[in-house]
């Protein structure tokens, strides 16, 4: 299985998520992670969908089908080497009085993770990195117990010098802010 990252640029209206996911559902392709946000351009959303698939051809067909959704401006399918990508994970770790104290220095310096909230009974640690780095940290912190763990899903930007503006030059682009 190869990991593919599919970036979909769409108009920002109701129901687009549904229109895109139904294409994956129909072909029985499972979504590993999904993030959606407005791009730097006003009214344009960006979907980052991570899937695992063993057929490049099937992924190419999928990309072409997603392109058919009327509100979709552009779709790009990437291999990991084509993109810079990252995830964020949050860990809620218990800190009872009698337990071994957490080693903030190792967490900061070795794992590049940060405590973002202190509570009397627990801390919340934010870890940014690749899936592998997040799970390395998961293994490290596990002995303390994990009350909650959440990953954001991948965000990715292509390493290509081209941008959406190059693909759709006729658009009247405006920055969001």
């Amino acid at each position: 299985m190869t990991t593919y990252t599919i970036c979909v640029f769409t108009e920002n209206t109701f129901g687009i998520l549904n229109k895109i996911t139904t294409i994956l559902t129909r072909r029985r392709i499972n979504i590993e992670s999904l993030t959606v946000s407005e791009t730097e351009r006003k009214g344009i959303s960006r979907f980052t969908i991570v899937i695992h698939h063993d057929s490049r051809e099937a992924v190419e067909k999928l990309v072409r089908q997603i392109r058919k959704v009327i509100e979709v401006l552009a779709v790009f399918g990437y291999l990991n080497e084509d993109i810079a990508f990252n995830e964020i994970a949050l860990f809620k770790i218990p800190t009872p009085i009698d337990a071994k104290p957490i080693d903030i220095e190792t967490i900061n310096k070795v794992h590049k993770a940060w405590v973002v909230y202190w509570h009397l009974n627990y801390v919340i640690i934010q870890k940014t990195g690749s899936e592998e780095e997040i799970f390395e940290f998961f293994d490290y912190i596990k002995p303390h117990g994990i009350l909650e763990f959440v990953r954001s899903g991948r965000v990715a930007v292509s390493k290509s010098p081209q941008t959406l503006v190059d693909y759709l030059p006729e658009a009247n682009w405006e920055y969001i802010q």
Partner: protein
Amino acid sequence: MEFNEKQTAVAEMDPQAVASTTPELINGSHAVIQALIHEGVETIFGYPGGAIMPVYDAIYDYQDRVNHILVRHEQGASHAAEGFARTTGKVGVCLATSGPGATNLVTGIADAIIDSTPMVCIVGQVAASLLGTDAFQETDIIGITIPITKWNYQITRADEIPEIMAKAFYIAKSGRPGPVLIDITKNAQNELLSKPFNYKKCEKLLSYHPRLAPKADQIQVAAKLINEAKKPFLFFGHGVNIAKAEEELLQFIEKTDVPAASTLLGLSSVSVDHPNYVGWLGMHGNYGTNVLTNQCDVIIAVGMRFDDRVTGDLSRYARQAKVVHIEIDPAEINKIMKTEAPVVGDAKIVLQQLLPLVNKNDHSEWRSEFKKYEQEEFEKITTPELSGDTEKIKMAEVIRKLSDKTNGEAIMVADVGQHQMMTARYYQFKKANSFITSGGLGTMGYALPAAFGAKVGAPDREVVAIIGDGCFQMTLQELGTIAQSGLPVKIIILNNNYLGMVRQWQQLFFEKRYSFVELQNPDFITIAKGFGIDGHTCANREDLQASIDTMIASDKPYLLEVLVEKEENVFPMVPTGASVSEIRLE
């Protein structure tokens, strides 16, 4: 809050009263109808109901400009709109209420997307304030129709109507055509537009630009492949008809001298009399076209999508051939067939550009190879089918007699099953744009409403629906629509008291275990007469010609029931999972 609700209630009861206070502003319902008029829509197939009543109230004022046809079931509206769109090339328009009205359109919408038929369905919806509350007749029709529409949209404010309607028509008819559904909440139908109605047709969208003119390099590659081919074989599909590219196709075929075969929905785009026409493809297509698919060296596919009913077992389908695929939808390229020379574009434009680049050629030797298969098929199947030596009439005889009677120039609307395949096989199409059937979805019950829609679209042409006894009972209520319109739609029921195609499969592949395929039928003529439609049952061969003559001579709707052989089979046949070269003649 209570005050607001009362205000809404007043507006719902009498939108005209509200509109008349400020004459330059119209309400959403009037905006819908005016948008339709701006799009050149003259015919709407619809059925009223609670959530669409404001629009129906508006139509009342436009009866001189818009012909609304009241169907008997919304499914009938959707198929009639398809039949209308297929004959005219214009967008078919349906109107229905929310909930069950909208869900009844679903089969027709699914049919339209798979057969690339332009259609705009306008459906009512509960007021925006009630969305998501399980209000009376509320259904998430947007959610339901996402996978089966080219585009859908929910309008919740009257001000959105002009722009969205323009977009709907543009999307439905441009590129690869398809159905669009517009869901309009009741408040949007009732409220006034905030500014005077101003309609601008949509000609371009930022996120959607169908490619009509092909890329020059793709044309070059395709031309080279075609010119170097020793045994080229051209397949044409529905795309030729949609692009109105029949003339260009003919010029291309005649210059290159390639043999040309049709898909089911391509039928009638090339006359059966043309020397380069070699038949049609697929499961019940011709013998030679299927076998020689596995011997040609280049396939030139024009406006077709290599449906599994055409290809049979894909792993043994035309592996030796290189493929030139002329297709407007880029997602079809390499979807089924690996393509050496994809040409994305409109069939008409592509063929125009390709024509000067292809060499004048003589492929008569290669074309003659089709002849011997043709001969064998003729001896083993066609001749016995038409011989008239069985006790009961055979379907093929009916179709061929009708073909002769109408000079192969009628619009044939076939339902789904054996009678459909027989129509495709034995009607000798001589005029383009003459075959309408549910190809992709295989929707039983399609033909009666579609034939009606076709007749509305082409009132000057003879329109004959060929329907099985099973199919007929799925949408027979549309006899009421036909009777009310008075349009002379001719209907033939080929009655064998069986769901014939399923029975054939049970005979051939399920050891004759006839599981729920035998029908106890009503008296179809009595039913027709109950609707005020004249009819006749033909039980003997001696009576067949006269029966057909009477039907064609009638200037009113007419139902002819022909009692046919109970257990006849359609051959040739490529069984499911077999290769096209394993086509069976018996």
